[in-house]
């Protein structure tokens, strides 16, 4: 019997499943970092496939900035209930309320996620944290390992990374250290969308075209919300938009789009002239090395 050859999505899926199983075999307390975005939703789908018919042997962790789209929270809760998963939520608001964090003057809470993330990892003694990061997203990420060591301060040291050979992953770590694991490292944005289509993976409705009251800031369409806006001369107007990423509402912009199905989104992404981060994430525009700096501090 000759086995059918693997197409690109089969090969990427098998690689991701292999990574999930390695981590389940070698770590005591893994967790999947879950934002409700398409990449982390694909991660959960892959985890389910890696251990079927048994349940996924680890929980999800959501760092909740409090600036979420209600559609995303509803989606998260429905997914967790449907799959019978355990969900740990770290509320950034709790850290602000007890003084461990201070609200930034610009109101954005994306950079504030790092401390609650590291505190929650320490509190639950998570030793492996799965993330949906992809190497095609950004130049610093292109050098990230699939299994990447973080010291007790959660820091990434790009200059002393372990070489990653064949498919032999080395996840050894000292007490207090943990690893970040990126099973979809080798996927592109288009691979993710094609996989969503092939596997019929459900996503939060904000990924698809809808009418929304938005205002213009820094060349992006931001939604009205508790994160501050519109301000000054910024004016709300109704637009047909969708989101390409899911993040903190203060800095995640919508794009004008009529793509209302996965097929239409794939066509749009294929023709797109802007990468997903460049189009819609203010936090990456701060500087040339914005992502590298945040990763060094323990951000995903």
């Amino acid at each position, binding site marked *: *019997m*000759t*086995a*059918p*050859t*693997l*197409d*690109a999505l089969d*090969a990427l*899926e*098998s*690689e991701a*499943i*292999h990574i999930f*199983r*390695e981590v*389940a*075999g070698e770590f005591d307390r893994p967790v999947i970092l879950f934002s409700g975005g398409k990449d982390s939703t694909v991660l959960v789908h892959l985890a389910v*496939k*890696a*251990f*079927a*018919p*048994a*349940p996924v042997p680890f929980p999800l962790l959501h760092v909740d900035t409090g600036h979420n789209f209600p559609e995303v929270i509803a989606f998260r809760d429905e997914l967790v209930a449907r799959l019978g998963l355990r969900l740990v939520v770290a509320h950034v608001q709790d850290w602000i309320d007890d003084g461990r964090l201070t609200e930034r003057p610009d109101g954005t809470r994306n950079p504030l996620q790092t401390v609650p993330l590291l505190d929650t990892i320490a509190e639950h003694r998570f030793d492996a944290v799965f993330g949906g990061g992809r*190497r*095609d997203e950004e*130049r*610093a*990420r*292109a*050098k990230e390992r699939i299994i990447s*060591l973080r010291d007790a301060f959660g820091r990434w040291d*790009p*200059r002393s*990374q*372990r*070489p*990653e*050979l*064949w*498919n*032999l992953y*080395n996840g*050894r*770590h*000292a007490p207090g250290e943990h690893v970040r694991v990126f099973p979809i*490292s*080798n996927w*592109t944005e*288009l*691979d993710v969308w094609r996989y969503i289509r092939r596997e019929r993976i459900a996503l939060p409705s904000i990924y698809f075209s809808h009418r929304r009251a938005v205002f213009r800031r820094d060349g992006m369409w931001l939604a009205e919300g508790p994160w501050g806006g519109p301000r000054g001369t910024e004016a709300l107007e109704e637009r047909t938009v969708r989101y390409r990423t899911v993040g903190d509402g203060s800095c995640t912009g919508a794009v004008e789009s009529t793509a209302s199905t996965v097929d239409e989104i794939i066509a749009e992404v294929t023709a*797109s*002239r*802007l*990468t997903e981060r*460049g*189009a819609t994430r203010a936090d990456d525009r701060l500087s*040339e090395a914005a992502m*590298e700096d945040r990763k060094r501090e323990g951000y995903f």
Partner: protein
Amino acid sequence: MTDLLRFATAGSVDDGKSTLVGRLLFDTKSVLADQIEAVTRASVDKGLATPDLSLLVDGLRAEREQGITIDVAYRYFSTPKRGFVLADTPGHVQYTRNTVTGASTAELAVLLVDARHGVVEQTRRHAAVLALLRVPRLVLAINKIDLVDYDEAVLTAIGKDFAGLAASLGFESVVTIPVSALVGDNVVERSERTPWYDGPTLLGYLESVPVTGPEIDRPFRMPVQYVIRDHATDYRGYAGQVGAGTVAPGDEVVVLPAGIRTSVTSVDTADGPLPAAGAGRSITVRLADDIDIARGDLLAAAGAAPAVTNELDATLCWLADKPLRPGARLLLKHGTRTTPVIVGALGERLDTDAVAWVEGTEQLGINDIARVALRTADPLPVDPYAEIRATGSFLLIDPPSGNTLAAGLVGHPLQVS
């Protein structure tokens, strides 16, 4: 159906490798407007007249500041025919570490030389490492042909020079392509300035080579990663990724190192059972007999099982600053098993400049490649690396720090003739 080709690029400093990679990304329209704008902005800041495509691929701040590439970077692009995963391996410091890393997952390597300099010491080193890792296919890209006036004689001479080296390293065939990454000749677009060249463009070749490696034709091997048990359905299966060969229901397999024979009843995935699964596929195997099997065990074709041994005769690529001396007590990771190991006598060392095995040394330093005898605490089912990569490769790990110290290859995969 589009498939996926994993390949690596290697070359010495200033051969224009970053520019070549930038050119591949740019000409396949894999670079989007905001990335081009960022590069254009940075190029203007540096006082350059045209965008420096190499800036597309230098990721870390230290790399941009120093104008060098430090670490292996992974790049992605695709054409209507195929998706590509490119491991871009820098050539200077830690060249063995980077080239070994990039080559370990590559089905093809593109080795760059500068048309003005031809085959240099770095070319020989990189070719030796690529041969050692047994990358199945090799492309020699002769870059900067614009700087030698597109002279066919220069290309012929370099090609001939390299063919001798490649033959002595055991490469069955090498495809030589004259390119200019800076101008774009023969990378994606066929050049009109090389009418004497009738071979494929670099991308044309990358799109047309078969992606399946030799592993699919070898006997079945699968390290067991995890035992999947579902009490609700009384399910018990052994999860893993097929390392070599194929497996199908009814196949006779042996569980190693225990040596117990059984047969496969089902090859499962979350999407249902498969009639057969080949190398690279993640599956869950159910077996006819109730045997004690755990992570670390290997399932292998019963008729062609590997030898089980505590004594390994191996080749090491030493990747750490800390030297290796005989008698060292380390950890060895093979497949899904990690076991203590004692390093025995060091044997011949690969002189990568002369590309020859030479008399041994007292210790191994970073970038050294040498033969070594190892004794493991647990018996391991191993194949020669030259035959099966999945069961012929291992890591050596430093117990206190957990760092990866060496890439290990069972047997002597590189014979220099």
